């Protein structure tokens, strides 16, 4: 079937994923899912790999990704390295963990026994097996922001698994739910398209940790879509930790829709991947909403990390906060583009955005582009971006107390990162990440 399709697609990279999508089983697929897959496949036929002329992609190059030939995740070995799993264990999430390896769910390593029966914490594959998918239909494709985006559609055409978390009205989930995506990439150059659905009903509350981890050197591709729906007065705390192998590719699109009086707090930590892209789109569908999109990226070697966010204030009386920090060392490159839209009738919006970049090496590169589009007149919007090095006076102060230069640099780098990590309320996870920043900085300090 493939030769005719390949000539239809503009790029062999895209054609390969069209083939993979078409090869996927339709067994147990409800009609709406089959239709969604078909429409994504149709859109892919018209899509090319974005290039430097595309505004959304101008700071990074996708040529190396587009040159890779990934196998579909179902053809990859999914053996799990138990050490790898123990390294990412979050004790607070005991009995509330879903584990995937190479994009496929591993029920034997997952355990949701600590959660109340009213709370749904499962996966697409399990629901499909049980013939129980229909309740998530409404929470698929909740915004049309990425309708023509290559990666969103690659996911749409190929996703088969991912976490499904549904917290009903008034339910407060105290145990943070941990979604773990392991990768054993070596010799398994797979592409996986996880799709995570998080739904918080009216006045529901939940914390979700979404973590990607992989050791070794595998060239694999995690192409993730998260769809997060908040009902009225709901509160979702979403901590994403991306530590894919530094030879891997990680792309993610996070869609968040917020109803009145709801509160979403997102923290995205990006340490891994040779090329990572983490984009979020938050749409405000009611009044009195609070939304936080914080981020910390730390890249070294020749890693590239790119974060694009869009906060869409369509209605009045809401607040958004954003603190995005990046640390770039060696020849690494970080990109930040933060869009804030305040629509014509969205009065009394309070929006704060700050992007701070710490450059540890003369060959490292930072591109930052705050982007405010304000069409209402009664708003308070502040934004800023800084690019700087470690502060000499701070370093001298530490050294004047007997701390050597190497350790001093590590401490100051850690301190820069700490402001974002401090917002992570899950103690063991926060401490693990803080330790990691200190260790990495000590290891690379000259």
């Amino acid at each position, binding site marked *: 079937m493939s030769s005719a399709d390949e000539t239809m697609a503009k790029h062999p990279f895209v054609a390969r994923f069209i083939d993979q999508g078409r090869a996927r089983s339709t067994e147990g697929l409800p009609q709406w899912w089959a239709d969604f897959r078909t429409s994504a496949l149709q859109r892919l036929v018209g899509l090319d790999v974005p290039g430097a002329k595309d505004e959304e992609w101008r700071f990074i190059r996708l040529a190396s990704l587009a040159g890779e030939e990934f196998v579909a995740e179902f053809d990859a070995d999914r053996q799990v390295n138990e050490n790898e799993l123990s390294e990412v264990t979050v004790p607070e999430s005991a009995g509330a963990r879903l584990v995937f390896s190479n994009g496929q769910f591993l029920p034997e390593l997952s355990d949701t026994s600590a959660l109340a029966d009213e709370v749904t914490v499962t996966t697409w594959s399990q629901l499909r097996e049980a013939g129980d998918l229909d309740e998530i239909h409404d929470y698929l494709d909740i915004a049309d922001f990425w309708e023509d985006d290559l990666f969103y559609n690659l996911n749409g055409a190929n996703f088969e698994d991912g976490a499904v978390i549904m917290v009903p009205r008034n339910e407060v989930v105290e145990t943070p739910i941990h979604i773990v995506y392991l990768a054993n990439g070596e010799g398994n150059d797979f592409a996986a398209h996880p799709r995570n659905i998080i739904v918080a009903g009216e006045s529901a509350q939940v914390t979700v940790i979404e973590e990607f981890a992989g050791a070794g050197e595998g060239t694999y591709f995690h192409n993730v879509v998260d769809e997060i729906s908040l009902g009225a007065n709901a509160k979702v705390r979403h901590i994403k930790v991306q530590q894919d192998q530094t030879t891997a590719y990680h792309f993610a699109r996070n869609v968040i829709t917020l109803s009145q009086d709801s509160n979403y707090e997102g923290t995205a930590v990006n340490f891994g991947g040779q090329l990572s892209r983490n984009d979020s789109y938050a749409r405000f569908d009611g009044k009195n909403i609070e939304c936080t999109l914080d981020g910390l990226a730390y890249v070294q070697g020749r890693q590239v990390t790119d974060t694009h966010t869009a906060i869409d204030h369509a209605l009045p009386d809401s607040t958004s906060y954003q603190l995005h920090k990046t640390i770039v060392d060696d020849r690494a490159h970080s990109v930040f583009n933060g869009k804030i839209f305040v629509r014509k009738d969205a009065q009394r919006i309070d929006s704060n955005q700050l992007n701070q970049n710490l450059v540890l090496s003369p060959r490292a590169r930072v591109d930052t582009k705050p982007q405010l589009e304000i069409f209402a007149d009664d708003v308070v919007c502040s934004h800023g971006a800084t690019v700087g090095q470690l502060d000499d006076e701070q370093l001298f102060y530490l050294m004047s107390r007997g701390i050597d230069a190497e350790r001093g640099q590590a401490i*100051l780098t850690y301190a820069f990162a700490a402001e974002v990590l401090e917002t992570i309320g899950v103690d063991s996870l926060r401490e693990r990440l803080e330790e990691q920043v200190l260790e990495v900085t000590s290891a690379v300090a000259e």
Partner: protein
Amino acid sequence: MLLQVKDLHASANGTPILKGVNLEVKPGEVHAIMGPNGSGKSTFAKVLAGHPAYEVTSGTMTYDGEDLQELETDERARAGVFLAFQYPVEIPGVSNSQFMRQALNERLKAAGKDELDPLQFDDYIRERVKIVDMDPKFLDRSVNADFSGGEKKRNEILQMAVLEPKLALLDETDSGLDIDALRVVANGINELSTEENAVVLVTHYQRILNYVTPDYVHVMTRGRIIKSGGKELALELEERGYDWITEQEAAQ
């Protein structure tokens, strides 16, 4: 001799600031270096501590038998040199107590002594904060971040109390303090003074010398110490200002 400075010249960005400083400090002594703004007295303290903005162009600084120029800033600190900053630096994200524990442990390690674990340090620091009458809540905050001017100066003296240096260089620690804070800081300095250590107090104002009694007072202008005397010299400066000394020097 704890510190011996001979004909020290130093410059910043090629501009000479210290132009032949001589000073000898023995253990157990308190020295005050006074002088008008821009005389080089703060630079002198920073050069002794090893600030990278200044280059020593000639002369020598010998501390405890060692050539200070051979030592990096952190090595000087571990050897017992301490600089209380005129403008203590804020370091958001680094906890004050963890910072001090690390600094103390570096000093202990260098002296071949056992390091303190967090619990031992906690006991130790809770005793030391009493010397500067400081609320222990400041230990849990980030280093100097959002501290008032007086709190920052107290925090400097607290670090001196924690590290127990042999040579404490106090760079205008008294400037900007109200009288209550000044008393606390001065009492701290007095309490920490022993026969084994020495204090060099760089100050613009005579007032702190009502609380800390110097053995020697030096007057610095234009990068040199031009007059030295006992504590009565400070009183004379208070009455007559600096002009008569500079005129005296110019006449010579």
